[in-house]
């Protein structure tokens, strides 16, 4: 596998149900995401984009096909190894934030670092730095219930970055936000992209495309379109059904990747 490729799938398939009730949520998808790329995946509800994101992050196992995260093939990993990989290499941002209600903002951000075995002092320092970066240093000791939707999502983004992951996977990050909060989050994603963080965002929101290097449209579990956006150096050269490979990725890495 190419060294600068952060995510790679081949024939990735996820089915639900059986016989006449069989649904192919993700249908033989080939995808390459090079380091530093900001990829937006769009499509109508139920087209399989969230399932694809879950498969990429190891939250779900494919019915068929392979997934690599960096040099690790994750579809055959044990649950324990997957957990370790998630806390070390993947940051998740969810539509409904999924902050722990009983923990303050800074405690939510340091969650992954503590799970990864970092010392409490170091985890707290990093969490405070990230909260400062997302503009919420003054809200660090507030509970999620005391924060607005946009602020909660910024805390979730800070949490996703706390372990300096290889890739940030965001599932409808602006889906529950009003316009003002959406703008805040978009600005943050733009900063993350500019810093060279690999980013995969599943969204309905066309404005996300403004901060992406590449956009894939999905329909019925497969890729319908894969196009580079302004500033992006690589485009999908689909090969067969559901193809979204990034040819020449090694040469075309726009952002510096991890750190």
């Amino acid at each position, binding site marked *: 596998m190419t060294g600068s490729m952060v995510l790679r799938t081949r024939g990735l398939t996820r089915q639900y149900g059986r016989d006449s009730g069989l649904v192919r949520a993700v249908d033989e998808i080939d995808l390459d995401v090079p380091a530093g790329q900001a990829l937006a995946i769009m499509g109508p509800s139920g087209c399989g984009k969230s399932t694809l994101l879950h498969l990429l992050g190891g939250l779900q196992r494919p019915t068929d096909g392979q997934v690599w995260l960096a040099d690790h093939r994750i579809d055959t990993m044990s649950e*324990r190894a997957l957990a370790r990989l*998630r806390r070390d290499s993947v940051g998740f941002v969810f539509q409904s934030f999924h902050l722990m209600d009983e923990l303050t903002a800074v405690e939510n951000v340091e969650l992954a670092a*503590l*799970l990864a*075995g970092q010392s409490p002092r170091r985890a707290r320092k990093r969490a405070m730095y990230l909260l400062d970066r997302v503009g919420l240093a003054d809200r660090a000791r507030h509970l999620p219930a005391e924060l607005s939707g946009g602020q909660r999502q910024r805390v979730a983004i800070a949490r996703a970055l706390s372990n300096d992951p290889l890739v940030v996977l965001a599932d409808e990050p602006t889906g529950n936000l009003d316009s003002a909060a959406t703008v805040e989050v978009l600005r943050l994603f733009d900063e993350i992209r500019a810093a060279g963080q690999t980013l995969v965002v599943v969204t309905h929101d066309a404005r996300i495309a403004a901060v992406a290097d590449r956009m894939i449209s999905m329909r019925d579990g497969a890729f319908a379109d894969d196009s580079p956006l302004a500033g992006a150096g690589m485009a999908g050269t689909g090969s067969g059904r559901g193809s979204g490979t990034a040819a020449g990725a090694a040469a075309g890495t726009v952002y510096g990747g991890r750190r």
Partner: protein
Amino acid sequence: MAGRLLLVCRLLVRDLRRRPTETVLLLAAIAAATGTLTLGLALNGIADRPYQRTRAATAGPDVVVEPPEVTGTQALTALAPLTTAPGVTGHSGPYPVAYLMLTARGKTVHAVVEGRDRAPATLDRPAVTGGTWVRPGGVVFERAFADALGVHTGDTVSVDGHSLRVDGTAVTAARAAYPRAGWRVPGTPFTDPGGLVWVDRGDIAALAGGSQSLSYTLNVKLADPAAHDAFGAVSSAALNTRSWQFIAEEDSALAKQARKTMLIGSWLLAALAVASVAGIVAGRVIGQRRRLGLLKAVGAGPAMVAAVHLAEYLVIGLAAAGIGLAAGWLAAPLLASPGGGFLGSVGAHPPALRTVVAATCFALVIAAAAALAPVVRAAITDTVHALADAASPPRRRGGRVRLSRRLPTALLIGVRINARRPRRARLAMVNTLITTTTLAAALMFQVQNRQETHIGPSELVNPDDERSYHAMLIVIVVLCVLALINAVVSTWSAVLDARHPLAVARTLGATPGQATAGLSAAQLLPAVPGVAAGIPAGIVLFLAASAGQIRYPPGVWWLATALGILLAVAALTAVPAIAAARRPVADTLRSTAS
């Protein structure tokens, strides 16, 4: 490691603070079972420690010797060689003893009357607990005997037709307490239940109708108190010897039935506590599904997820063990009071280490047993499923679907709620089963002839029976409280869990009344088989723990019990159900939208 430990502790503390009611309920459930076990264990030593204390305070003898078949000078002659027998280091007596009839408060009972000097003896110095020691013309009662008869210092009683004033009460370690004082049937080696009184040595001959009819008792101290068997062998076969260990054993038998009741009760309560804790934990884990999914998403492995959840319940178990232990030990004197027969009380000293260890392990096992299944299930739950906070879809069974189509709306809702969470329905059934079993056993106990001890022509309250009755009452009260908690918690969990589907049902036309009735029905339906199985189980339990002729309550009593339990379940579950149904549908739909 420090970071993970901090995280586990942080989540534990925040969760306990966030759900104080559930935490208190968990504590109450486990502490109730632990407290009952502590009470049962305290009864094991009911007479042990107080007897030892009484023995030390009254210079109790190692062996008491009586010639059962001879009286007067013959008895004195038989006892005389023992005072200088090998291994004997001290003695008191022989004291004259008469087995007479005592009349007090209209009751005539057996009394072992012992003649004593006013001066204290070297061995067996009965400790006066009220009034004074013996004086001419007076009588001192063994305290438990006085309690059973209801006599007090200053009263007048009659001993074989002779009036005596009650000078006081005292306790001794030389004879077992009432009713095991050992009233000897004249001219035979056999004994009957009776109580002990002391009179002035100068009065006893007149009471017994002459000195030749007096028996005698000798208190002996041995160089080696454990060598009473050897002493018994050297003394004449015609002498009756009672070691202090035998007397202590006799006294401990006083609480045998009560101890059995408490121990069976504690196991029933433990089963109920497991059901209760399992119900609460299952509800909590369901409520924490998103948190669980998030933990997994950010990299917590199954072991970490299990540790986060299990730590909470083990900490609660530990706290409950402390509460239960303290409550059980403090309550022990109420039930396990050694009565008038001894000095001190059962709960006056800290519990034995084995009691502390047993109670702590018991509480932790309850917490772990109840939490293990939901926690393991949580640890292996699919992350995406947990994040979506989706309930497992009920298995579609054709029969159930066809049946529910024909049911009225309320019953249909109840059937569907149970189909959605079958484990909770099973816990509700177990809860009712254990409650009904205990109540049925208590009903059986209640209809038996309350045993009164025949102490001569009259009957007195049997202290064994009284203790058993009190033990049964304690078990029933604790069990009913626990069952009540279970019913309310189970319904409240159902309310929280079903609020979204019920809100949807209401948008489709179900009325608040139908929703309330549906929630109640969801608890009532599994209670029916629980009641049906609990009544025969309670009868079997009682039969297994009893001996002798058994009486059964009339059928209508059983019917009333069954209906009463079902009505109680319906009433208890209606309260949270009504509270839930009063909330506007729109609010519920908004708050449960994912």
